[in-house]
């Protein structure tokens, strides 16, 4: 089974979903993410779904559950990068993702988390990436 990688960027975990999600992979992500939040003490989670061509009711529920679980574990979740056609379809489907914070892209998602949680994060993603990865730059 494929797994969705969870990257640590300072106090935030970044999940970038790059493949069409099988249900079992989505459920595994939910479990992995909970484990990583506890293991790292992360305060925020950014889930980038810009590569996802559809979000159906199952995947939508996984995002809502994932955000609710993260909140219980003291981490805020922002789902970013939803395509316009996906947003239109979700609303038609009857799923408004209430309770899930969204932002247009990763940069805006990180900004929301920084403001809400007062996280000591660098001004831009590049700085965080190079700081947290000794091999970069």
């Amino acid at each position, binding site marked *: 089974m494929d797994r969705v990688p969870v990257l640590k960027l300072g106090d935030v975990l970044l999940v970038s979903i790059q493949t069409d999600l099988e249900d079992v992979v989505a459920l595994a992500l939910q479990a992995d993410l909970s484990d990583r939040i506890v293991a790292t003490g992360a305060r925020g989670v950014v889930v980038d779904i810009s590569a996802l061509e*559809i979000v159906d*009711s199952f995947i939508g529920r996984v995002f809502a559950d994932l955000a609710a679980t993260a909140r219980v574990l003291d981490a805020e979740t922002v789902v970013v990068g939803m395509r316009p056609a996906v947003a239109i379809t979700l609303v038609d*489907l009857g799923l408004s993702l209430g309770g899930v914070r969204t932002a247009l892209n990763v940069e805006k998602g990180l900004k929301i988390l920084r403001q809400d949680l007062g996280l000591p994060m660098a001004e831009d993603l590049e700085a965080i990436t190079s700081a947290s990865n000794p091999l970069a730059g």
Partner: protein
Amino acid sequence: MDTTARGSPSPQDLPIEGDADVVRVRQAMRTFAIAARLGLVEQTKAVTAASELARNTLVHGGGGEATIELVSDGRRRGVRATFVDTGAGIPDVDQALTEGWSTGTGLGLGLSGSRRLVDAFDIDTAPGKGTRVCITKWAR
């Protein structure tokens, strides 16, 4: 995929026996929706509806089959998907089509939500007789 001389894909039958098959149905639905020249939003709605129904076939029908095909009414083209299972069937279709009604494993959006996403939605089911759902989405 087989194609005719005009480049239209032939109808495609897909088994639905596991999670990976639901993803394959989504991908095939996308291919056919593009072939029918649906716009991006219409494609996304058609693929999402197919995903909901393929999962229903798997979870509630105990597996089954999807057939995806191009259709035309003379003026416009569209994509049609038919989902068939030989599972327990649905005792009360009106109730199952009510938004929020659920057997307890989902949000209750599968049937009612997918009906809203397409232009035509036909369901044929009875207790013990399995379920057949046919959806059509036309290019605007």
